[in-house]
């Protein structure tokens, strides 16, 4: 019998189709042309989105993955195409985003000869991938692709890079459908230990002032309902990290913790008796000085990855496992409780915080604040809108004041703090959630890092709403210079182009606003527009984000102004 053989690149695309990849983001080049060609032949089933830079492609794949919960895919050529992915890989690794990067490579017999556009991307990308692998022969493609998807999405998700040599793309081999349920010698998800859950429940039942801290782990595990069930049964307030779950409609969600987090959860972290950390990793931007962080509390840590337990903060009861499974087991074992006094402590401090908020939201100054703009966005946005923010002052303000009412509503670069992330991520997110409104809040600095990706909009009608908060500075850097470097504004002032004309060059409508009374109308007009829109708002130049926990060498306290 004659078994049909296919070209390597064709086999690759067939595997992507089996994995139900609908969109992938990429950029062509010499070492990946055969794959591009095969993708084009399957254009009816799989859509290749041409970005304008490989960094844009990987950030778009991240945005897609974060909003949809699926694996994001991007492809690029060898050499410079591959190295341009590094920032995105590092970002996806630290923020646990499941993505697959496929890079072309020179032919097998040219490896190690400094061939044109050869770069040793495997060795370069080791520290920034969950796994990486080279495919030197077409017959290995099926196995490796399926295995890569399995690894990317299992346990704590992360980026996988697949480097495929040019000859492997061209050789012919047999296509076979391989199923993957298990990879040997790979601990994707630890076994649940019920005795630890019982220990945790005893602590919680005895606690007077327990506090839950949630991170992105709960979103990745799709365990939001399980989380709410625990919190509601025992009346435990939920504070969240930047990437964690927020729900402004729910009375037990008390806000964001961390350097620029909400005041109440930050203050009360140091007064709680039990801290229940779920799917988070005690980043230093969350804890500040670890020597004084929540030292009065006993810590219960629900985590999927053993190496996160006790990494930064000593843990009293580790509960390993997928929190989708461990949370219900814990909820079963905790007793109902009212905890009136503890909850009212939050309300008291929240009232104090509102006073701080007055300055942000109802300023008496002539210049506009970032906070009031987010407030107007809340007024006119759709209920389930997704906010994608870049990195800087606007990120902190937007996360603090945005009104969250549905899951997977915030996409931002948390662990790595990658400026330029948001614009491509917003485009990717629109592909991942066609029917949700996507709002991209971005600073004038971050916008200029990746604005070439506006080019994606020339071909694809993506009605994303870009809100550019222009303060003429690299605002967050300037704030630190003001506070810690005696106002020496070294290299942080920006001379900016005309952003509206720039948008026009890409056929994007836009408006620039400088006066307070024009904001509501402009925000409404932006949301009413059924294509992409750039709203540039000139905000106060020297505005500082407070409250702020100054850390490390700068002392440890919450600065309110």
């Amino acid at each position: 019998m004659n078994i049909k053989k296919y070209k390597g690149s064709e086999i690759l695309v067939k595997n992507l189709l089996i994995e139900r990849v609908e969109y992938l983001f990429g950029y062509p080049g010499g070492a990946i042309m055969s794959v591009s060609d095969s993708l084009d032949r399957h254009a009816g089933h799989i859509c290749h989105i041409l970005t304008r830079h490989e960094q844009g492609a990987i950030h778009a794949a991240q945005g897609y993955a974060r909003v949809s919960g699926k694996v994001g895919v991007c492809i690029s050529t060898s050499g410079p195409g591959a190295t341009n992915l590094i920032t995105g890989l590092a970002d996806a690794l630290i923020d646990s985003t499941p993505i697959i990067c496929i890079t072309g490579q020179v032919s097998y017999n040219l490896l190690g000869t400094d061939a044109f556009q050869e770069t040793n991307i495997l060795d370069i990308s080791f520290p920034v991938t969950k796994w990486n692998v080279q495919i030197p022969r077409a017959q290995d493609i099926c196995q490796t692709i399926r295995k890569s998807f399995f690894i990317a999405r299992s346990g704590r998700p992360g980026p996988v890079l697949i480097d495929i040599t040019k000859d492997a793309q061209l050789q012919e081999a047999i296509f076979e459908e391989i199923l993957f349920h298990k990879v040997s010698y790979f601990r994707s998800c630890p076994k649940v230990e019920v005795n630890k859950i019982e220990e945790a429940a005893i602590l919680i039942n005895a606690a007077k002032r327990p506090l839950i801290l949630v991170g992105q782990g709960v979103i990745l595990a799709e365990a939001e309902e399980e989380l709410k069930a625990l919190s509601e049964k025992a009346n435990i307030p939920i504070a969240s990290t930047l990437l964690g779950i927020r729900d402004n409609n729910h009375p037990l969600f008390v806000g964001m913790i961390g350097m620029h987090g909400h005041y109440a959860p930050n203050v009360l972290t140091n007064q709680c008796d039990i801290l229940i950390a779920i799917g988070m990793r005690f980043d230093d931007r969350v804890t500040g000085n670890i020597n004084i962080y929540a030292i009065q509390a006993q810590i219960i840590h629900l985590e999927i990855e053993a190496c996160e337990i006790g990494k930064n903060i000593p843990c009293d009861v580790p509960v390993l496992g997928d929190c989708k499974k461990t949370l219900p087991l814990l909820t079963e074992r905790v007793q109902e409780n009212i905890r009136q006094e503890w909850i009212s402590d939050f309300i008291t401090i929240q009232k104090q915080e509102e006073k701080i908020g007055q300055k942000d939201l109802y300023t008496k100054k002539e210049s506009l604040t970032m906070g009031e703009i987010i407030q107007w966005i809340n007024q006119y946005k759709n209920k389930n809108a997704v906010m994608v923010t870049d990195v800087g002052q606007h990120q902190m303000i937007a996360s603090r004041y945005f009104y969250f009412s549905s899951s997977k509503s915030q996409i931002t670069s948390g662990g790595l703090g990658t400026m330029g992330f948001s614009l491509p991520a917003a485009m990717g997110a629109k592909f991942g959630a066609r029917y949700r409104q996507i709002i991209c809040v971005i600073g004038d600095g971050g916008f200029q890092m990746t604005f070439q990706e506006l080019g994606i909009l020339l071909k694809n009608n993506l009605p994303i709403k870009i809100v550019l908060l222009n303060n003429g500075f690299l605002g967050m850097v300037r704030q630190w210079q003001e506070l810690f470097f005696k106002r020496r504004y070294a290299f942080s002032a920006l001379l900016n182009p005309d952003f509206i004309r720039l948008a026009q060059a890409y056929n994007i409508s836009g408006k620039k606003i400088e006066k307070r009374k024009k904001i509501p109308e402009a925000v409404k007009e932006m949301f009413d527009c059924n294509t992409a829109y750039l709203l540039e708002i000139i905000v106060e130049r020297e505005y500082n984000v407070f409250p702020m926990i100054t850390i490390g060498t700068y002392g440890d306290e919450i600065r309110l102004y």
Partner: protein
Amino acid sequence: MKISILASNIERLINRVIILLNRSNFSLIYLNISYAKKPYIMRYTLEVKCTEVSIDKIAKQIEKHLGIISILYY
């Protein structure tokens, strides 16, 4: 500290181990890679300069990588 690792014979796996040690600035004094008794299984024997507390954390990070079967240190 001495570290003994059993690992499946995946190419470049030793790189991941060394990168993790490097990240925390452990200096490597000795490294040996050999076949273990079973087929397709390798043994890495390393000696590094570090404290017990720090090796404890790094060992957990090494252990999570695909292909690492077990890790011992003393």
